[in-house]
């Protein structure tokens, strides 16, 4: 599915140079569920942003679905991203002006090949799947945290991406709701989605097939969980 080779990311200002990622090598196969862990500032989010094509590496190679995309332009990345990657955030990132239905619809709005009728059907389907269809007309502020994250997940999956990226998806949720979200992700993974998740939570990381530990921008250990 994707492969990072000797990938580094350096942030430079006029005075300081900060290395966020150092010579990272990482391979993720289709259908895998990978958790990334590590202390604050170790480069987890940077890694996720590069994998999600929101940021570009300073050096190294990034192979995605058979293409080396490290040097692609913003518009090329934008096209690839909208067809292949879904994002889930710790802070949900729902648009306050839009209701639940419209927030999910947003992910299909920029897909010109999806007709309006098709779009609506897929949004309804995604909302039902996430058990928030009855809240379709509500605004994000009217929902609980768990419901908001379900809507965010519905939005991430509605465009049927091959890769789901989750940045601490349970970070803003209580433990029961967090468990529910993890169950959902596991189900999605079971249906074939590749998932990369950044988390601070050891129990939630245990849901993944593999845990990658980062420290100071480098991969220090990889722990593979045996299939149960």
């Amino acid at each position: 599915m994707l492969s990072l080779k000797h990938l580094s990311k350096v942030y430079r200002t006029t005075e300081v140079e900060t290395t966020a990622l150092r010579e990272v090598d990482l391979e993720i196969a289709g259908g895998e569920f990978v958790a990334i862990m590590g202390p604050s500032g170790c480069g987890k989010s940077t890694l996720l942003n590069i994998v999600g094509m929101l940021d570009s590496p300073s050096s190294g190679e990034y192979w995605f679905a058979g293409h080396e995309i490290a040097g692609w332009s913003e518009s090329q990345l934008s096209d690839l991203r909208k067809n292949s990657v879904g994002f889930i955030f710790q802070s949900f990132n729902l648009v306050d002006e839009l209701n639940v239905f419209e927030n999910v619809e947003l992910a299909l709005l920029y897909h010109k090949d999806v007709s309006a009728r098709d779009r609506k059907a897929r949004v309804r389907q995604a909302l039902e799947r996430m058990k928030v269809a009855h809240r379709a007309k509500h605004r994000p502020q009217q929902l609980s945290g768990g419901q908001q994250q379900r809507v965010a997940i519905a939005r991430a999956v509605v465009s049927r991406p091959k890769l789901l990226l989750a940045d601490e998806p349970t970070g803003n949720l209580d433990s029961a709701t967090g468990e529910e979200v993890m169950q959902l992700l596991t189900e999605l993974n079971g249906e074939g989605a590749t998932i990369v998740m950044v988390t601070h939570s050891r129990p939630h990381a245990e849901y993944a097939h593999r845990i990658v530990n980062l420290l100071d921008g480098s991969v220090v250990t990889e722990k593979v969980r045996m299939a149960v």
Partner: protein
Amino acid sequence: MLRHYLLMAMRGFGRHRLYSFINVIGLSVALACAILILLFVRDQLSYDDWIPDTQNLYRLDVTWHMPGGQLLPAALSPFPVLNAMKAEIPGVAAVTHVVPQQMTVTAGGRQFPQTVTVVDSNFLRIFRLPLLEGDPARVLAQPESVVLSASMAHKYFGDSDPVGKLLRLSGAPFECKPAERACFSVIHTLRVSGVLRDLPHNTSLIADFVIPNTSQADEISPQEKQTGWTSTYGNFSFIRLAPGIDPATVLRALKPILDRSVDTGSKFLSGSGLEHYSLIPLRDVHLTSGKLGEMRPAGSRTAVYGFMVIAVLIVLVACCNFMNLATARATLRAREIGLRKVVGAGRTELAVQFLVEAVFATLVALAVALSLVEILLPLYDRFLGEPVGAHYLRDWPLLGGIVCGAILVGLLSGVYPAMVLSGFRPAATLKTSGSAPRGSGLLRSTLVVGQFVVSIGLGIAAIVIFRQIEFARTLDLGFDRNDIVVIKSVTNLNPGAREQIARMLSAGPGVTGTALSNAVPFDTGWSNNVVVHADGESQNVSIHLVKTSPEFPSVYGMRLLAGRLLSRDRGQDLSADWSKGKNVLINAMAARRFGFSAEEAVGKTIDLGTIRLTVVGVLNDALKEGLRNPVWPAVFLIDPADYGFLTVKVRGDRLPEAVAFIDRTWRSAAPSVAMQRYFMSDAFQDLLTADQRQGAMFVVFVTIAVLIACLGLFGLVVFTAERRTKEVGIRKISGARTADIVRLMLWRISVPVLLANLIAWPLAYYYLHRWLQGYAYRISLDPLYFVAAGAAALLIAWATVYANTLRLARASPVRALRYE
């Protein structure tokens, strides 16, 4: 997709009320101002454009190049010029003379002083004015025929059909000899041959009574029409050129005709040297101002352009607000933008979304603006004294233009925020607290400086304009304009009757004196200019020849600087036989031009052609044309044959009594002549009205521009306060007191204002200096005006942000830091 953008625009609108309010109110008020100005400008530019087929029609204007270098531009021209041009210059397709004359018009028991327009019989074929009754080719064919406007027809004949009815007209031919008493009061009977629809207000023509110049009632004699190459007698000349003919070619061809025909009285001065002609396209006539003898008060091209500039500036100030607020609020939208990018939105799609939002806001503002305009229009019309309003639904081009203009404003306001916002990098913005786009802070500061440059510049202009108006109002004009009644219609009396009425009135209750003259202050329709030279001086000087009865200086309160006044008791003062020499008064300006002091001038002689004038006294300078024109050298002499005005000085406390007496006396002494009188103070006020009105308009629009800028500043401070919260918290923890914080914040807002002063001052100085050059008597540009406007801007800026700054500064640092 467009639906989605509109949905976002509408929801965002409702959710961010303060933000939307500031934007929409700013934009609507700016657009309302711009539309009101547009209506005024459109009206000013529409003069005479409703008359069909006038694209090749010109007015021929003469500018007298007087020896001594003075120029005297007139809206008029001598009568014979047109006919010579028609006969000799190819390309002159048609010509027509138009001479408005003051007459008494009577029908049955109705008698009023009226302006009668005396024209060539082809007038209505060249000016295709709308006739309600009659055939334009024939209504003026008979010499004693008259065409009335509908309202005049109603005034004289009520509801009955006026065509075929008789009107009696009496004026005073220019050529009446003082001894021929009957000449002054001949009554001519004319038959109504047609009725004109009343002319709309946007015309430079007067057409209440139109008669052919073949009529006996015409005050200009046939001989004068043939030979009067050096007088205009109030004649307007209109020329239709054949299509494609260049006016400059025609004017070149006129020169040899002038050299041949004009007798300048000097072999050193050619006809084309004395008279310079220009052709003014009919549609430009209204805005060609500053000329002697306009038929109707001219508009001001400077004012029209000036207000257009103000409209653009006000809209730009509102656009700046929009851009400022949109980029300032960008941090609040950063998350949404990042998210849209994550789900695949490209930069173009986002830019389009923000442009749609900007245009949406502008269209909402336009709707509010149009409502405001509708509410304000009656007031505005009354203020301008003209109906400039429009019926939008009937005037599609106007409405279309306004809507397109508003969309353009929306795009202009939206384009920068669209570029900035769509350029956000999603990885950065999806963190909970988005970061501000780099560079937009500098742009915001630039825009704020720009707004204040406009506000301060316009503020200085407002101060200067008002100081100049006040200066004009209170300036010592060198004569007394209060408690003076001027009677115009004495032209239509014979010289004996004029003197008699003057004598009768001077004995009346509340009357302190009367004077007859051929000119009075503020009447710019008439000027008698001749060339003289003083003995011993080779230099010719062009002077106003003012013919007055001896009482004129005392009635107008003019001061005698040297010598004595004229008197009825001295033969040489009074003498009607000019060839034996005549005693005259001159003004101080004339004395200076001749090269004398006032005392030296007394006893000197001046040559007027072969006539020898002896100076017996010198009067102070009187600004009889107001402030725009400098004082001309003038010579005052007694000449009872030529008086056209009777001035009556009354006692202010007995005004009603005196005026009643004047009316009564006139009716009994001259029953066949309708009296036309006015107060000198009104004439002076008329002179100032246009300036005062435009000054007031200017101040209103400037105030609005400043308020819009302040609104924007307020919004900016509110929206950046959130980002400032952390900074303030840290400063307070480090020991800053509330006062320190407030001082710091006020200083930050002061920097752009101070910078704006540096830019605005020279700009304002440059334009105002040029504007003041249009006044012969003007204020100087006091640096205080500039400092005052700058200080006012600074105070207003402080007042705008103070409350917010104080709240920010007083907030607990703990709360401020938790905000992060």
